[in-house]
């Protein structure tokens, strides 16, 4: 099978074949990552520019490791060191990035749609590392890689996504991709944090956690941000935990071999009980490890290496 990936802007519109190819390739890189020497020369001479305008430690680190293992030349262009804080326009910044002639730009930005806008002024492959509330495609891919490893499939898998959906790019990307792969997705969150047209995306919507996680093979908890309290979206952490927190008791509603996921960073005792976060169902650290493999696969594909690797 051959796949072509020009950019990775989101999971919306990415077909089943492409997702499968990325995950298969990630499996391959995961095996590489278990070797003593983890570095491969696949992206030697390829320049990857990490353009991170919004603060991010884990995603940026994960991309950097992926780039280094592929032997790419990497360069970091972050908000604190750039002139963005001085009011430069996005278009000017894009031109500056273009002048550095990168082959791949990995972008994290607080503005939804920025990766798409960058494709118009930068002649490089754009990889979205999170744009506002919109999408975070590599997170969805690493989540699916983790699910597939544990469950052996994605089609027909029962996945519950719980928390603040409205403001979650992780939720959007997972919903698009999981629905494409034929998973049955249930979503639960306070009505104030579930967007009105969510069912149009092919998911079941609940406003209590219990029906969403009942019989679930995967329970994905989202981070709740305290500033949502000020907007009147939920009363306080205590009530949130009481009605939407994942406790040991609630987890019994899910399948007996259910896995528990969280994109991090976690608020222990708010969306997830500490004993669940550290319990035998949790695969949260595996998600982190899979992040590197998935990002290697995506970088490899957008660099144009699709054919041989997937056939290998």
């Amino acid at each position, binding site marked *: 099978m051959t796949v072509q990936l020009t950019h990775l802007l989101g999971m*919306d519109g990415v077909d089943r074949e492409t997702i499968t190819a990325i995950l298969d390739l990630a499996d391959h890189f995961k095996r590489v990552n278990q070797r003593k020497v983890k570095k491969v020369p696949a992206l030697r001479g390829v320049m990857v520019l990490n353009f991170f305008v919004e603060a991010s430690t884990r995603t940026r680190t994960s991309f950097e490791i992926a780039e280094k293992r592929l032997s790419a030349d990497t360069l970091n262009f972050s908000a604190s060191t750039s002139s963005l804080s001085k009011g430069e*326009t*996005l*278009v*000017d910044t894009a031109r500056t990035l273009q002048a550095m002639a990168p082959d791949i730009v990995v972008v994290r*930005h*607080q*503005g*939804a*749609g*920025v990766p*798409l*806008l960058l494709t118009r002024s930068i002649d490089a492959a754009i990889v979205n590392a999170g*744009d*506002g*509330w*919109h*999408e975070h495609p590599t997170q969805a891919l690493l989540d699916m890689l983790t699910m597939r490893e544990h469950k052996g499939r994605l089609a027909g898998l029962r996945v519950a996504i719980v928390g603040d959906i409205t403001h979650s*790019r992780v939720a*959007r990307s997972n919903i698009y991709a999981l629905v494409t792969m034929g998973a049955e997705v249930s979503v639960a969150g306070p009505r104030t944090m579930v*967007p*009105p*047209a*969510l069912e*149009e*995306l092919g998911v079941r919507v609940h406003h209590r956690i219990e029906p969403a996680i009942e019989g679930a093979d995967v329970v994905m908890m989202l981070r709740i941000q305290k500033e949502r309290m000020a907007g009147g979206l939920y009363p306080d952490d205590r009530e949130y935990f009481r009605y939407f927190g994942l406790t040991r008791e609630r987890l019994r509603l899910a399948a007996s071999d259910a896995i528990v996921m969280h994109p991090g960073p976690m608020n222990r005792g708010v969306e997830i009980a500490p004993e669940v976060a550290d319990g035998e169902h949790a695969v949260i650290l595996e998600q982190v490890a899979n992040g590197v493999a998935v990002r290697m696969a995506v970088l490899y594909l957008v660099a144009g290496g699709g054919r041989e690797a997937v056939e290998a």
Partner: protein
Amino acid sequence: MSAGRTWLVGGHLVDFERGIDGAGAVAVEGGRIVEVVLGPATPGPDDAVEELDGAWLVAGMTDLRCALREPGYEEKETVSSGLRAAAAGGFTQVCATPDTQPVVDRAAVVAEVLALAKDARAARLLPVGAATLGLRHETLAPVGELHASGCVALSTGEHPVGSAGFMRRLLEYADGFGLTVLTAPAEPTMTGICDEGTWSTRLGLPETPAAAEAIAVSRDLLLAELTGARLHLQRLSTAAAVELVRQAKARGVPVTCDVTPHHLHLGASALATYDPNLKVRPPLRSEADRRALREALADGTVDAVASDHQPQHLEDKSQEFERAATGMSSVETALSLVLALVAEGELTRARAMALLSTGPRRVLGLGGGGLTVGEAADLTAIDPGHTWIPSAGTLLSRGHNTPWLGQALRGRAILTMVGGDVVWRASGEEQAE
């Protein structure tokens, strides 16, 4: 100014109010209309003649909402560039919004703006005063002073008045001076930049529901009913809002309203491109809303189409959608977009022309106008088949922030006359293809 008569011949005269819709000619002298002929005309040997080749001739096209940006934001637009752009768009007069720097909240600023307009040799400028000092909506502007200095209406600017009690007093006080209050309704605690629904869900953009507009419209309609004061609601974007206006008009509330060309042509689905030129206030709405606006245009609920021209500097739009400036440069494309509705069979020619001429003049309570002897020779000749492409080369506005940039539009003003002077003439070469 020409010495003798000028005849505009071979046109198709349209005046909705007078029931004129047929071939004819108009003679102009001394800045006024001196003869209106239905059927063939016979100009005298010394008269100048403009052959209209079947173009429609309409009197007094008026834009109810046009930001000229001067004083204060000359990098976006000047009074001169804005009025020339308006003339190219076919408008013979525009209501200049008061959200300049300084705000048009005293006679001195009105005088400055009128002086700038005097030299423009383009569309006329109708000053609109700020309803409140600095548009801060804390204290009333000197409404009497603004009226005396030439303001034709008052406006609440980009953001409506939040307090119902204060809005009530504003309506009453303005009505005492015979001035209509223009307001663009939106509940200030429910703001967002994308219509709440499918597209805010998909695109992850901050949302505002259609109800945020309907809530504000309801309040303002009740206040208009309470006070009996004249109220004009601007750039309505939702089915709920026009339905509320329809009901209010039926029970005799003194209210009028307008919509923009872009809300008639574009829906929220267009935002999938995240094009900052599509960021407008209120946001582009659903297909159902768009259909309802078109129906309300045809059935008379909507009184006018106003361009809501908001030229922005390239830099203000060179940002991601969420940080980009709001508004569209639209005074030059408005006529083409209304003509597109005629071509699509959604509006009759007469109704379309009324929405751009007699409709807005009635909103302002301006007497006169129309294709009548003795009226000012403010005339627009429109060729519905003239195709043109908005571009940096063809637009006269300093703001090129339009999603129609580079796209062929059909129908344009080929000649605009203000006070008997030709202030715009479309050249044959610029016609596309």
